[in-house]
């Protein structure tokens, strides 16, 4: 029983990280329909921005994190501005955007690997590393912060989307792009905003993992693909769905090793995913993507 509680807690922490990636990726996918795998590179970049800001520029931790989040938002925005929008202007197909995104992911990950070596780069997180023991469960303050930040990120995104004018513009483009254009919404600018917001949400996930176990160049690929699994499970176009999907995957992976050997952990999520899309292709609460939209 103690083991189950520990796995549940770890699952919640890991699930919070997946959820942060998933809501950002889901926002971008739902709005632009770009299969933005380079989100994984933004995730990695955020971690290295924080590392550089703290270790090389000697900024205090909190400031380093803020710089990294802004840096990630700018990186996401630039990817859309300089890559995807340029391709769209040339009349590129959706597959071309995906291929370019894949190319950028590989390129950035390997540039990072050359500059910083593939080894984990550790950060100093001071008191955040202190253990918290709640009954049989062992966590650190950082782990608790992770769950809190995921909730804060989710709440902030929902308020932004529902209450602000820009948020409403994003929702308009996401649900009916042509209609949004007709009422005078600039699609390109809304896409840029979506990339900035979505990337800013991936940043905390990248940074928190780096604070826990060090920044690594190739970790983002796995995160972004799990995020896409979470988004599909939650339902495309649904932010609450993406949040739930991310947390669900974290719990699933960790509770899975209660019964299965731990080396099978990475296979669990995808196995369940395949069964899931047979039973409920539109996810927990989303709309189905039809072939014609692709």
């Amino acid at each position, binding site marked *: 029983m103690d083991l189950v509680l520990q796995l549940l807690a770890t699952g919640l922490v890991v699930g919070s990280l997946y959820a942060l990636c998933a809501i950002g990726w889901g926002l971008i996918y739902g709005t632009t329909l770009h*299969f933005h795998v380079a989100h994984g590179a933004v995730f990695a970049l955020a971690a290295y921005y924080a590392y550089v800001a703290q270790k090389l520029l000697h900024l205090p931790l909190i400031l380093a994190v803020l710089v990294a989040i802004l840096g990630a938002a700018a990186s996401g925005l630039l990817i859309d501005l300089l*890559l995807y929008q*340029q*391709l769209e202007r*040339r*009349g*590129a*197909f959706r*597959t*071309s*955007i*995906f*291929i*370019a995104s*894949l*190319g*950028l*992911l*590989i*390129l*950035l*990950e*390997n*540039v990072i*690997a*050359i500059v910083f*070596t593939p080894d984990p780069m550790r950060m100093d997180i001071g008191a955040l590393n202190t253990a918290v023991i709640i009954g049989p469960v062992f966590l650190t303050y950082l782990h608790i912060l992770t769950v809190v930040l995921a909730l804060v990120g989710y709440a902030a995104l929902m308020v932004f989307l529902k209450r602000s004018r820009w948020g409403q513009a994003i929702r308009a483009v996401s649900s009916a792009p042509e209609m949004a254009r007709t009422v005078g919404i600039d699609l390109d600018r809304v896409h840029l905003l979506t990339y900035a917001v979505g990337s800013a949400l991936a940043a905390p996930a990248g940074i928190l993992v780096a604070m826990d176990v060090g920044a690594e160049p190739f970790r983002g*690929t796995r995160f972004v*693909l799990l995020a*896409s*699994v979470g988004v*599909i499970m939650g339902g495309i176009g649904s932010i609450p769905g993406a949040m739930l999907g991310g947390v669900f995957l974290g719990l699933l992976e960790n509770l899975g090793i209660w019964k299965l*050997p731990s*080396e*099978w952990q*990475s*296979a669990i*999520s*995808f*196995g369940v*995913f*395949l*069964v899931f*899309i*047979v039973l409920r*292709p539109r996810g927990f609460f989303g709309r*189905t*993507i*039809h*072939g*014609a*939209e*692709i």
Partner: protein
Amino acid sequence: MAAYIAHYLVMVGIYTILATSLNLLVGYSGIFSLAHAAIYGIGAYASALAALKLGLGFWGGLVVAAMVGALAAALVAIPSLRVAGDYYIVASFGLQVVILTVFINWTSFTNGHAGLPGIPRPYVLGLVIDDPFKYVVLSLALAALTYLICLRLTGSAFGRTLRAVREDEIAAAATGKNVVAVKITITTISSALGALAGSLYAHYITYINPTSFTLDESIFITSLVILGGTERLAGPFVGALILLAVPEALKFLAIPDTVAAPMRQILYGALLILFMFVRPEGILGRPRPRSVA
């Protein structure tokens, strides 16, 4: 030097099979797969195990490889392609992860990281294929066979249906084509052919381990297709000729190994982006009318 070139040509043959079969999906059907290295691995393990545990020969191994490869792909294609193409990107990545986990962790069967040594050399018409020169003939012959199969397939009525589905699923469905069945069929055929390359590789190197069948490898095979030319059957062959020569060329520049590997990946990534800008149809491809939206 001659043996070196022979080895290069054998690998060109193997990668031509992989990329030509992947082109059926990426180029002709507009289905994107990240699992082709897993399929390649399935072919390699299936035929290696058939040889080591069942004593099956090279040709028997080829058949087993194609069957297991087709089965694995169908298992993933049936649930995901029912929904939409993007689901298959995710599902195929899932397949890639799960299969690699199986190669590494099902140790009683695959021997884990240590891999499977001692895979026998193939016999063709009673002749043992034991040096790279003979293997060049076998490898290129099988590549040519794959090419001919794909040529027949893409030139047939089924091939035209494929392109119709890629261009406009709704229009294809309106003319009475079963879009989902077409997509699942082509994924299965593509994987059966891709698995043949695995079989060829296993019997050539005589030793396999999981490191040859990673996601990076899947992406590399994809680059061959994109660079060579989608929707042109000879495209992947040209892609393989060029991209397999690149690492060999890099060997002449005295770059340390720790930098050379990421450098290669950076090059592939940059080429993928560059081609999407200047020539999305690849080196040999015919330009397609661009979408207006």
